[in-house]
């Protein structure tokens, strides 16, 4: 069943390319744009990470992990017309055990143009580690991708259910506007704080470990940070 879900995602993507000229133009453009943005983010992350003390760098990478996670979950709303996300509601009539469904959806989410984003960003996180911490970063990356796939499908499922009713559609517009406002507000807040006290000061003033250490995406990156610091088994 896992293989069938992966095959389904491949067929949906392939058929979309084969029989839809808009996608034949749109997909390469989206892949190029997403690849370029991811590359810029990854190189920015690597260079900023190198300027910070080990403790600050750890905080920075966990903030980056949280930001990436939230951005990824919201991604289907942005690229909905170009990337097929398997809606779990469409699979509800099949007798699929939950673990196989989640595994299948996680693997399926890696088939498509959006895979370029986690490949580059998680790759950059593996790149900056040393020794065995690289292996931990790789494993944490797999866990991170699984978390993103689950959260993304939950979000897509909710949006998809909302779009089926008039009230839901009205609410979905508010959700999309909310995402836009949240992104703009977050950017202004972070930008303002960094301008005021610098990256190091902002990280010291707002340690993510104070309030989000147990959030799954932050915890996955924390394991990498602790491994890099030599604190094996601390997270």
């Amino acid at each position, binding site marked *: *069943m896992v293989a*069938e879900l992966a*095959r*389904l995602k491949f*067929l*949906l993507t392939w*058929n*979309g390319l084969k*029989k*839809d000229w808009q996608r034949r133009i749109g997909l390469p453009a989206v892949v190029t744009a997403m690849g370029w943005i991811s590359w810029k983010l990854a190189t920015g992350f690597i260079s900023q990470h190198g300027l910070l003390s080990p403790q600050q760098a750890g905080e920075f990478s966990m903030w980056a992990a949280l930001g990436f996670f939230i951005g990824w979950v919201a991604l289907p709303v942005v690229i909905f017309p170009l990337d*097929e996300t398997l*809606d779990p*509601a*469409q*699979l*509800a*009539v*099949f*007798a*699929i*055990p939950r673990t196989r469904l989640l595994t299948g959806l996680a693997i399926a989410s890696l088939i498509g143009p959006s895979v370029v984003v986690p490949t580059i960003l998680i790759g950059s996180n593996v790149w900056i580690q040393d020794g065995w911490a690289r292996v931990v970063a790789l494993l944490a990356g797999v866990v991170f991708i699984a978390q993103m796939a689950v959260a993304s499908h939950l979000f897509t499922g909710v949006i998809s259910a909302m779009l*089926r009713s008039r009230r839901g559609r009205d609410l979905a517009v508010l959700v999309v506007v909310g995402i836009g406002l949240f992104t703009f507000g977050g950017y202004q807040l972070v930008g303002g704080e960094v301008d005021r006290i610098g990256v190091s000061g902002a990280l010291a003033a707002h340690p993510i470990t104070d309030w989000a250490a147990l959030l799954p995406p932050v915890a996955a990156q924390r394991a990498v940070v602790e491994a890099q610091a030599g604190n094996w088994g601390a997270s």
Partner: protein
Amino acid sequence: MTASSDDAQIAINPEPQAADGVPQAPPAVWAKGLVRRFGKETAVDGIDLAIQPGEFYGLLGQNGAGKTTTIKMIVGLLRPNEGTAGIGEFETWKQPLEVKKRIGVLPEEFNLYERLTGSELLDFTSAMHGLDREEAVARRVELLELLDLSEAAGKLVGDYSRGMRKKVALAAAIIHRPPVLFLDEPFEGVDPVSARLIQDLLRRYTAQGATIVFSSHEMYLVERLCTRIGIMQRGALVVEETPQGLCERLGVDTVEDAFILAVGGGTSTEGLAWLQNSPG
């Protein structure tokens, strides 16, 4: 016709009684005290059902009566607020996988993968139901042929007409040969030739022991196909009877008349004087 359901004095049939000392097999489809609320509105209000194997059961009601909500709760697509439902010995919300293995569902609003071809959709459905590839292909070819979709088999489902989508969704619902089939408005938008073929197919299917729960507003089809009907009104099951028995009891000739009597329909249109003058 202005008679109300109260005037008709219709009662729901009691559940079938067990023979002396012999434990009776559980019904093919059952529900006990199903309730579903949406906000302050109660869409389904304490439904009890017991549908026996081999029955072709028609679930009827006006728009908004609660038919689709009831079916969704029985098949595991919508969680009830109260009550329980199941298929045979399995309870939908306690053993969902066992239930889903045994049912085929054609929902009212079918959400098909539009970027799969008809053939790919059926192959995917077969694989999800665990059919081996050879058998799946054989069944797919036969079903597409029967439903007059062979020529469109390689087209994307998104390019199908409404009737074609209904037919391919029906094929997906039956391809794994489930013992229980739920069909919500299966003939809506389907051409008469295909509709007749589907009727024959479904009748043969129940003759082999399968159970079909069928929701439709096409009363002539209900009359032709169903061995028993249940009529819902405002979330409650107000009538359960065979089509013939119901007609006899109400002294009418057709299921359509019986249905209108049962739900207290037949609002007068006399007030629409403006519509009774010549147009223009």
